[in-house]
């Protein structure tokens, strides 16, 4: 009943489906990886789940920061379907059909069922990806039936004929008024068959959208206005930021290494060639000085930016762990250095101890002026012509002195001064915000209130030089 070739073909397709899902999820795959996977699959037993999974991950995933994404896609694509069964592949092919069989035993043969499944897959593959998300399964089904009817009219594939010849009811259940209009009046078919096909479509659609959903979820989080993140989402964010942070770090160090060779190192060349009578057999070059920016972060953690500041602190924490020379300060109306705190603790603990142990003078609201003054008094040693200062806050100064003199001195004594403002641009002078008082003196004031924007900013700051 099963033809070897047929099965091989279906299996192959499953794997292509899986790689497509990974790509949807944002993992870069080239043909080399996919070909390697197929080669490797010859050598492993499919009844060994670990080996099977590892075969896929070690051939397809080249960046370990992508492993969690791979893991999730794998779970959803393979494990749901195969459960605890012994042989992955058999179940992979058969389970989808077995599940459906219970709906109907006589009306349709196994071969027809497989044919139908293939048609459904083909149909969905041809749909534009947005419509997979936007249309309901019922809508998709009626489109599918339409396409079947067309193809059976033109003589191709007797499937449509077979389905509609076994029609039972006059009107299909589950198809709402408008939908049945689309389908046409004569599209009536058996209840069980209808449900079964709907099931097929749903399964297949869920499968196809695994990767995209994963990516959409990440993007949704990354783009979400930070004020609106829920506590659970913040937890998820943490993992995501770590992942992004690691990627960013890797990318930066990759570029750093690329700008190395500089001019001839005469001293070293001379010294090491002494053994050859000072005939310069081997030349040595000076390494070009690698630009390691020194970062000074001043973060407003007052209640007006509460959610935001927790989040920004988390990012600052990540920054600090990414770059060796970072000093971090937090303020409300007092400026406090928290570099050490961050160095010693994980962010969660550091964040809670910042808010419980340290004296930023709560309740008084932010005082940028006082904080800048204090910064100049106590920490001006951290500034040099190499340092980039990053002020993070909404500049809502509670109508107090802006401390312009100190602010300008901070600017003068550093190379760059960037201000990341979580408020939307049109709110920059709203209420007690004095953003535009500071703005002309900054290298740049930027609206940053989601991770994508921040990553963008950091990327420009450190990478593109």
């Amino acid at each position: 009943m099963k033809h070897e070739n047929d099965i091989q073909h279906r299996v192959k397709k499953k794997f292509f489906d899986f790689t497509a899902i990974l790509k949807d999820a944002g993992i870069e795959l080239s043909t080399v990886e996919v070909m390697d996977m197929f080669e490797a699959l010859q050598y492993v037993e499919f009844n060994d789940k670990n080996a099977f999974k590892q075969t896929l991950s070690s051939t397809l995933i080249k960046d370990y920061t992508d492993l969690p994404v791979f893991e999730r896609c794998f779970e959803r694509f393979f494990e749901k379907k195969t459960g605890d069964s012994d042989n992955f592949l058999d179940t992979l092919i058969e389970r989808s059909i077995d599940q459906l069989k219970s709906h109907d035993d006589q009306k349709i043969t196994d071969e027809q069922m497989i044919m139908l499944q293939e048609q459904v897959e083909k149909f969905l593959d041809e749909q534009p990806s947005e419509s997979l998300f936007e249309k309901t399964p019922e809508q998709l089904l009626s489109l599918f039936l339409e396409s079947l009817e067309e193809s059976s009219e033109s003589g191709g594939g007797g499937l449509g004929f077979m389905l509609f010849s076994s029609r039972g009811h006059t009107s299909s259940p589950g198809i709402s008024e408008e939908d049945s209009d689309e389908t046409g009046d004569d599209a009536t078919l058996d209840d069980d068959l209808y449900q079964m096909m709907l099931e097929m479509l749903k399964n297949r659609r869920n499968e196809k959208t695994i990767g995209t959903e994963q990516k959409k979820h990440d993007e949704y989080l990354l783009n979400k206005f930070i004020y609106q993140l829920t506590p659970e989402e913040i937890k998820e964010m943490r993992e995501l930021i770590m992942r992004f942070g690691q990627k960013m770090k890797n990318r930066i160090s990759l570029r750093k290494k690329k700008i190395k060779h500089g001019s001839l190192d005469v001293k070293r060349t001379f010294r090491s060639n002494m053994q050859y009578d000072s005939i310069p057999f081997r030349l040595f070059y000076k390494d070009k000085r690698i630009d390691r920016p020194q970062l000074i972060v001043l973060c407003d953690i007052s209640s007006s930016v509460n959610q935001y500041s927790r989040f920004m602190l988390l990012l600052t924490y990540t920054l600090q762990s990414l770059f060796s020379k970072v000093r971090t300060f937090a303020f409300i109306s007092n400026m406090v250095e928290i570099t050490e705190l961050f160095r010693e603790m994980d962010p969660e603990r550091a964040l809670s101890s910042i808010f419980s142990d340290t004296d930023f003078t709560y309740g008084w609201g932010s005082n940028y002026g006082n904080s800048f003054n204090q910064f100049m008094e106590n920490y001006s040693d951290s500034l040099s012509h190499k340092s980039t200062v990053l002020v993070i806050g909404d500049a809502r100064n509670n109508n107090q002195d802006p401390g312009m003199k100190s602010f300008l001195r901070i600017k003068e004594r550093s190379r760059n001064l960037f201000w990341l403002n979580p408020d939307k641009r049109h709110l920059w002078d709203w209420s007690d915000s004095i953003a535009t008082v500071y703005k002309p003196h900054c290298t740049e004031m930027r609206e940053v209130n989601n991770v994508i924007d921040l990553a963008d900013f950091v990327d420009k700051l450190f990478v593109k030089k």
Partner: protein
Amino acid sequence: MFDNVQHVIDQLEKHKYICSRDIATTIYLAMKMQKPVLVEGPAGVGKTDLGKCIALALNMELIRLQCYEGLDEAKALYEWEYAKQLLYTQILKDKLSQMLSNEDTLTDAINKLSEEEDVFFSDKFLIPRPILKAVASPSPAVLLIDEIDKSDSEFEAFLLEVLSDYQITIPEIGTIVAKHKPFVLLTSNNAREMSDALKRRCLHLYIDFPSKELEEKIIQIKVPECGSYLTSELIETVHRIRQLPLKKEPSISETLDWAKALSLLGCEVLKKESAIDTLNFILKYEKDIELVKKKSDDIFIH
């Protein structure tokens, strides 16, 4: 050659390396596919040891190249022995001038001299370095390129060439093609990311901290004097400690050190006091030690 995934596990265990099914699968595949493996993971999870034990298990020569910043082709591939060449030139001075005495012009002399160049650029004066050794080896070898992330990207590009055709051209001598492709293992601590091209050439293996079962086996095989009761208690504890937000999590090598220390002290059960006294075997930062002390009631049972 390994017969199957299980065979990898069994053979490595004979050489006291306990590997997970995941590790074994990738190694088995890489051998079958004749591809290098890029091994990544935290410090001390057995990346280097894996290479060594594979060589032992297959009775192959282990050729190791330790990478560092500034590592260049001369140190990885081959080097001319300039000093020796110079010395020979000195010794052969008379012979050379005698040979050149009949030449009238400088050009003639140089032409004559260059006819003899081969003598100086032959394998007599060649010092082979690990990669050349691995390629020229008469029997298949394991080439362990350790901590590739410490090298520069120029070196990586050069390595990529070698890994694509397993042949080395020495202009003065000729091209050496590998009789047997060496089995290549590259390890990295993620100090920087490898280029896409290199990653494409390799299978990827990420080694994480082991499961309790595996780590227990590692201790039993490496520190048998640490009884099975103490071992399992120790592993439970280490795994609880790894859950804490630490600056640096203890790795397998630290667990091994701890096991050795505790058995030297004659412990049979893991008492809280002796555990705390010896925390510095598994934790390198004062802060981490303090944290564990603070949570000691949850972490230590006795």
